[in-house]
């Protein structure tokens, strides 16, 4: 479908302890995205914010940034989820025929709260919450299950961290560009076996904004806009014990929907570059499988082959991914922004040559309960 285009993107540099306030970060990316699109705030006829009250430490957090996003006089809605879901809402607004240009803004100040306490609150207060489960140790349960079911090794997971932190060295927005080895990852401090410090993503503050437009506006103003070719999303069961944590059924379904809409039959051959939500190293391997880039249980062999490296057939996370910057609410939207830069040929040192089809992916909930997949092209 060539009905909705992404005509502007902006990101802050991701860092721990960004001294800007929520609103200042939202304003920075709103202004830069408008500049990128060559628009003024008067051209925006609706906005979508992506705020989560727990992460932001305030109730109805979205209402505190209406001025910063220029949205206090236009229709504005909040999506409480990953930034990709904000983009999904934005695209639906345009497809409804009611609006022409949507601004989507996501921001997180992860360093202001205590991530483990906030992610502990994901879990059912009547049941598992009292076990002290959080994003790290719940993911450790998933990583162990994935490794034992499919014979994936800690070394293979570590390779993802080495690749993505190295890629981050070419991304000026990245929080954690690092030159590390597999050995460094394996010898880093064990947080929750088998997850080590360098298998995890950093505590990052930052914001991302994208501007989307309907085809008439996009075609009139821009010579070669980036189009949304397909979107799919799907969620799995809430309780960890209801799922086989080594499986990626919801992502398989989300990807199938996105590929079907985009007319993609052979994702590995047809997709040139992918930005996926690798909150932990092992997740990139699982998401490769769910996205159909390899078979079930073959994520380890795929990273071994070098196929997802910068010089491989399908580079994954040229930006350094979420492992190199994890501004929670904004992290999925940043995947879309990076995919757009790739398709414009403006990704500078992290550019994948000749990219014409890109995939961006976001997750929400514990252990990738929900997935949202975008296929973009130009």
């Amino acid at each position, binding site marked *: 479908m060539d009905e909705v285009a992404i005509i502007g993107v902006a990101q802050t540099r991701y860092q721990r*302890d960004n*001294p*800007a306030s929520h609103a200042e970060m939202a304003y920075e990316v709103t202004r830069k995205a408008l500049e990128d699109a060559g628009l003024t705030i008067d051209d925006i006829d609706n906005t979508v914010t992506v705020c989560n009250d727990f992460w932001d*430490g305030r109730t109805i957090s979205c209402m505190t940034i209406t001025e910063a996003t220029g949205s206090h006089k236009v229709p504005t809605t909040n999506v409480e989820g990953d930034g990709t879901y904000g983009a999904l809402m934005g695209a639906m607004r345009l497809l409804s025929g009611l609006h022409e240009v949507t601004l989507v803004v996501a921001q997180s100040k992860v360093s202001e709260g*205590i991530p*483990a*306490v906030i992610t*502990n609150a994901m879990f059912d*207060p*009547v*049941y*598992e*919450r*009292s*076990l*002290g*489960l*959080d994003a*790290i*140790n719940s993911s*450790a*349960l*998933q990583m*162990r*299950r994935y490794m*034992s079911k499919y014979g994936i090794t800690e070394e293979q997971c570590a390779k993802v961290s080495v690749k993505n932190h190295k890629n981050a060295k070419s991304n000026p927005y990245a929080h954690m560009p690092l030159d590390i080895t597999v050995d460094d990852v394996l010898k880093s401090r*064990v*947080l*929750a*076996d*088998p*997850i080590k410090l360098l298998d995890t993503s950093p505590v990052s503050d930052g914001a991302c904004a994208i501007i989307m437009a309907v085809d008439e506006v996009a075609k009139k103003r821009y010579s070669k806009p980036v189009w949304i070719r397909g979107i799919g999303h799907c969620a799995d*069961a809430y*309780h*960890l*014990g*209801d799922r086989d*944590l080594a499986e990626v059924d919801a992502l398989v379904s989300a990807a199938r929907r996105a590929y079907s809409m985009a007319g993609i039959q052979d994702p590995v051959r047809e997709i040139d570059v992918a930005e996926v939500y690798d909150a932990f190293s092992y997740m990139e391997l699982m998401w490769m499988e769910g996205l159909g880039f390899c078979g079930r249980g073959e994520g380890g062999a795929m990273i071994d082959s070098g196929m997802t490296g910068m010089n491989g057939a399908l580079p994954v996370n040229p930006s350094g991914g979420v492992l190199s910057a994890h501004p929670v609410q904004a992290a999925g939207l940043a995947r879309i922004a990076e995919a757009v830069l790739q398709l414009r040929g403006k990704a500078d040192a992290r550019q994948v040559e000749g990219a014409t089809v890109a995939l961006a992916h976001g997750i929400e909930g514990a252990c990738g309960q929900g997935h949202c997949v975008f296929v973009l092209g130009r």
Partner: protein
Amino acid sequence: MAVSSEELGNTGTLKYPSRIRLPYTWHAGKAGSRFYQEIKDHCKIWGTKCPRCGWVYVPPRETCPRCFLDIDEWVEVGDAGTLLTYTITRYSVPGIQPHEPPYALGIIKLDGAGSGLVHLLGEIEPEDIRVGMRVQAVFREVREGNYLDIKYFKPLRS
């Protein structure tokens, strides 16, 4: 009074430390209430069984999330089961953790259950824990009707 340069730090901006206090009371629902009652009064673990797919849910559910059907059949499951996965939490997060780290967590598929139960592991050294091992529930002496009435799962020695 002027803000000191120390308060402004090297970014020239202030930080405002505070704390959110949020008392809250959750209803456990019909299924959750009976689940806890059985554990508290009889040290028995009960689940519910879907009439269509036959899946036994522990903790019990009143509707089958797969079939979207009401469930009213209650079945007792074993207090022993098989360990599907585990981790040892080695970092400290004051206020949310049931024990001082390191402490072990796992997902246990109880005998007769379809779903896994996430819980603590005890009476075992971290290096001796294995996926696939048999474990058994240890109940607290004094039970209050909550998740930690099961103290932990210990290795089942045959």
